[in-house]
């Protein structure tokens, strides 16, 4: 075996220094690194451009490209941020986004955890067919549900303008319904992979269903729950369509995505302000992403069918 490895063609170990093979190996390494770094650099240009622009004074933005700011003499300012935060309702929207995202994350996941446990470890009539139905619903466009749900909400007074004590109730309910299929799917996949001995020995010890669920299943599922929480939170934080439909654009209730979309239309030429607003809206997702990337990636790998 060791001979086979040593004889492997194309490794630097066997090629003598400065032989043609050694040179071609080195060259292909260089090409590889250039390609990797070049592609990555190209990928971060759009984000870098908007970040740099958001800190440039207006007079410079309109007269030179953002890349010129990277060379001396440097002139950066936070004017764009202070202006856009004081002249628009971005600050309020920032809170609204939290008001929408936190319950919109907690409620569906709490409901889904119980359902997913039943789907994975209880036997009941039609279980597999119902679960198959849940998988099917994952692909259904949300658009299909807007008209009937909205007219039901309007007919029964469940609208954000009507409910001053809970203006976000409609969107919480909607995100609960829309978030459930994916949450159930992801959690059930995880629960089912738990070893069945665990449940058998717990039952022999006389533990009831509730004890098994709260003391064994939930603690073991913390990684899956963490990825799901991050996923659902970012999905709602970044959502525009559901927010537009159920909350609308009124300044007191609009989340960041809706406010930013409105600014895009109203600012027009005021691009220097828009870049600051866009970066402001990206703050929380970027913090969540950079600190919890591991869980985020795991969530994506566990269920890649979210719509």
């Amino acid at each position: 075996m060791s001979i086979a490895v040593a004889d492997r063609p194309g490794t630097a170990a066997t090629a003598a220094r400065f032989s043609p093979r050694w040179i071609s190996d080195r060259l292909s390494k260089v090409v590889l690194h250039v390609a990797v770094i070049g592609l990555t650099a190209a990928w971060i240009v759009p984000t870098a451009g908007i970040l740099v622009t958001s800190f440039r004074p207006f007079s410079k933005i309109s007269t030179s490209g953002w890349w010129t700011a990277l060379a001396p003499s440097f002139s950066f300012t936070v004017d764009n941020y202070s202006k856009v935060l004081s002249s628009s309702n971005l600050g309020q929207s920032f809170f609204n986004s939290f008001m929408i995202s936190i319950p919109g994350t907690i409620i569906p996941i709490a409901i889904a955890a119980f359902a997913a446990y039943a789907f994975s470890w209880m036997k009941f009539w039609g279980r597999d067919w119902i679960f198959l139905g849940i998988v099917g619903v994952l692909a259904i466009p949300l658009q299909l549900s807007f008209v009937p749900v909205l007219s039901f909400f309007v007919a029964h007074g469940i609208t954000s303008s009507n409910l001053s004590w809970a203006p976000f109730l409609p969107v919480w309910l909607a995100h609960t319904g829309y978030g459930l299929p994916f949450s159930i799917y992801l959690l059930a996949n995880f629960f089912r992979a738990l070893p069945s001995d665990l449940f058998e020995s717990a039952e022999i010890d006389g533990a009831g269903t509730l004890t098994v669920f709260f003391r064994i299943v939930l603690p073991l599922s913390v990684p899956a729950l963490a990825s799901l929480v991050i996923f659902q939170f970012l999905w709602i934080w970044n959502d525009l369509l559901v927010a537009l439909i159920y909350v609308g654009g009124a300044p007191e209730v609009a989340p960041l995505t809706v406010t930013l979309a409105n600014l895009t239309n109203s600012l027009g030429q005021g691009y220097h302000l828009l870049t600051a607003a866009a970066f402001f809206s990206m703050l929380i997702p970027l913090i969540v992403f950079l600190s919890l990337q591991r869980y985020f990636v795991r969530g994506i790998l566990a269920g890649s069918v979210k719509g």
Partner: protein
Amino acid sequence: MNWGSFLTTQLPTLLVVIVGVPAVIVGYIVAGEFLVRRLPDAARPSVRPWLWVGPALFFVAAFLVVPAILTAKASLETSKGDFTGLTNYARQLGDFPSGGAWIAIRNNVYWLVLYTLFVLAFGLILAVLFDRVRYESLVKSLIFMPMAISSVALGVIWKFMYWYQPPGQLQTGTVNAILTGLLRTDPRIWIQDPKVNNFAIIGAAVWGITGFAMVILSAALKGIPADLLEAARVDGAGELTVFRRVIFPLMMPTVVVVGTTLVIFALKAFDVVYVMTGGNYDTDVLANRMYKLLYFSGNTGGAAAVAMILLAAVIPVLIFNLRQFRAVEARR
């Protein structure tokens, strides 16, 4: 912002919701369990599961299944609720090739093909290249980062990338600056010019989602046994042959899964179009058309018909997904 109303009404509501709702759900399960214990032994296993799945089934039925059926019904009615047969569909699908919903359908086809293919191609190339360098995790998270930002922010970022000034003037948008500065060609009005704007918008969306494909494909790549690749190389296969004959076929199932997910994303495309053009300049897509019909025209019948067209496009993917799911289940 109005701090007074925030502190006195909204914040308390939020606290009540994030503490109260989980408490109610747990209370419901505990109380249900208490009642189930009172039942005779034989009845317990048939009652308990329904208590556990009940709330979830209620929400899925109330927000997805029943509304979908009602939308199917609404697509056959006028906005006042009178039955009109297929009139709504005829209005949306009548004037081929440029009236009704046809522009949106054409653009959704562009999205379906170009978005899916480019994301898969980029995802695959990046996954394979990054697998060979030691700083893999760093470059991966940089490519993946756009996944964390909203499509609205993405739209703003790319509007800025595609910024246009008339020829002869200084181009401050990155894409046109490269065109005029490095390639010495005329700048393009990327967002308004109907010849290129769909591709420009799809390009922006591809940039945002490639990290998603890359991460999944990269995980599949790492799952290929190293001996297999080694054996192919010992037999004298070049890197390209190894990729074509060994890596790609073994990754095919994952490529298919990612591909179907991307097809669904492409069909539901909305945010990027809404922010970058609002569906103007021939860039409309079905989801945006439906939103406009619903909100600006108040045409619920037309909106429902567009939603049904969207559903019809998704159904093949849905059936395919279900088959895949059952095949995987059968192997368990």
